[in-house]
């Protein structure tokens, strides 16, 4: 199943990625191959089989509603590219 360069650009922009011309071409080819493989899987009759959401056959993994402070304010801001004493700072965004 062929993927167009436009589709690659659209998906890349959704993921905030930018590719060179060569990379775009390569992506289009590789993504096409992945979709071909998925097409192959679709040959199987899966009617009546509930969709699987997780590879592990376990469910109901819960934590209790208990508060634990594992990092403090300073730790939280330590990894930020930009911060002041209170806030994370990012380039101005207004939707």
């Amino acid at each position, binding site marked *: 199943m062929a993927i167009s360069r436009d589709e690659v650009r659209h998906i890349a922009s*959704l993921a*905030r990625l930018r590719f060179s011309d060569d990379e775009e071409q390569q992506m289009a080819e590789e993504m096409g191959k992945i979709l071909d493989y998925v097409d192959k899987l679709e040959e199987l009759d899966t009617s009546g089989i*509930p969709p699987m*959401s*997780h*590879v*592990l056959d*376990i*469910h*109901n*993994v*819960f*934590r*209790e*509603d*208990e*508060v*634990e*402070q*594992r*990092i*403090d*304010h300073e730790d*939280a*801001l330590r*990894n930020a590219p*930009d911060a*002041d004493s*209170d*806030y*994370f*700072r*990012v*380039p*101005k*965004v*207004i*939707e």
Partner: protein
Amino acid sequence: MLHEKYEPVIGLEVHVQLQTDAKIFSPDSTAFGAAPNTNVDPISLGHPGTLPVLNKKVVEYTLRMGLATHCSIASRAVFARKHYFYPDLPKGYQISQFDTPICHDGYVEILLDDEAVDTVGGDGQPQEPTKRIGLTRIHMEEDAGKSMHDRDPHDTLVDYNRCGVPLIEIVSEPDLRSAHEAYLYLQKIRQLVRYLGISDGNMEEGSLRCDANVSVRPRGRRQLGTKTEVKNMNSFRNVERALEYEIDRQIKRRELGESIAQETLLWDADRGETRSMRSKEEAHDYRYFPDPDLVEVAIDESMLEAVRSSLPEMPDARRRRFEEEMGLPAYDASVLTEERAVADYFEQTLSALFKRTKGGNTQAQAKEVSNFVMTDVMRILNERGIGVDAFPITADRLAQLVYLRMEDKVNSSAAQEVFEAMLEETDRSAGKIAEERNLIQVSDKGTIEPVVNRVLDENTEQVQTYLDGKDGLFGYFIGQVMRSFEGSPDPQVVRELIREKLEARREQANN
């Protein structure tokens, strides 16, 4: 009228913050109002390599709401990633639910008031006082952080305290037909979450948020008009105002033959209008897929049963019980059950009163307690801006006062005075306060009679004028007796005695 020609069609998406202690997928606190970026955790900050684990209480709380709103409960619920880039969402996706919401296909009933009934159909048919509003779904998700754009000229500042606070999103069917119905529906959602103890439902603090899908169509037509989405309505009053404005705007455009753009609008409360967000009209492409970090939630009958047995009596059932069993007027029942804590207080007072009266006319007693709670108690709650849990007169003590009043031990103005005193003197009983202030009503004729005799003896001139035909003086004698009495004589007894004594004197004079 243009508004009779068109029918508004409204659906609401309501987000409710659940009042858990910890966040939905991490153990950091959900406390409101903490210093910025102090209630955070590697998971809520989206650090690489961290794994979310679901807070069990979120599931319980969501099921409470689902059961209370007659929803079908999914046997398996899956979390999905909803992708978009915005700095308030550090992972680049929000964990939400997509095609397997935990609750679906429910309804709530709203009680239409006069205003709402007027806005429904103009066919002259009597309208049902209640209306059923369908719920499409209720799902669980995490809240985002908070970004501030106007604090700094160059940067956006971000606070992640709210990031990961549990939310439920409640999506209604497009069953609402006026701005006022939308308001009533939202009030009902607030009432339910507060009754269920799963949220404080505070719109001003953002624990209840509401977006609306609005369209209008000519009455009688099935096909829906183009809808707009209205956001940023942050109070109950604003929801009604914004929707009224938007409905009006759409009708006017249609009348002028102009089209309505499908777009997102922001309500500007200061200017009283909706404005286009003017964002790039690139359709959102969230690329939902099941979150591989979280396993399925399987809801079995035992889980449901545990939640079901924890549900309190819901407001509608309670309102009906107040009407049917206690014989309260519909208005009283509706006011008293609006808040669960007030309804509890009312019932505690009533049962404390029953212990004193040991029977009798229970409906009259219910009405008397209702009067005290609706007028006196609620007036103080409003004046002081407090909840009934902070009200200084306990249910037991209020019952003492109601009992004094019902037994005619105090008259109504004395009851008022005792009530005011009880607000301050929280360690004394109503009876003690009434006694100390000489407010206990004296009904004993033997005690009142000498005072009546004395007053009539001291006012021979007025007695003569009265006997000569000036009936208006009767009130004067009552006033004199009440004033001369040490304490509070029962006005009824005073009246009877004066009449008796005056008639006796008339006969004496005639003989």
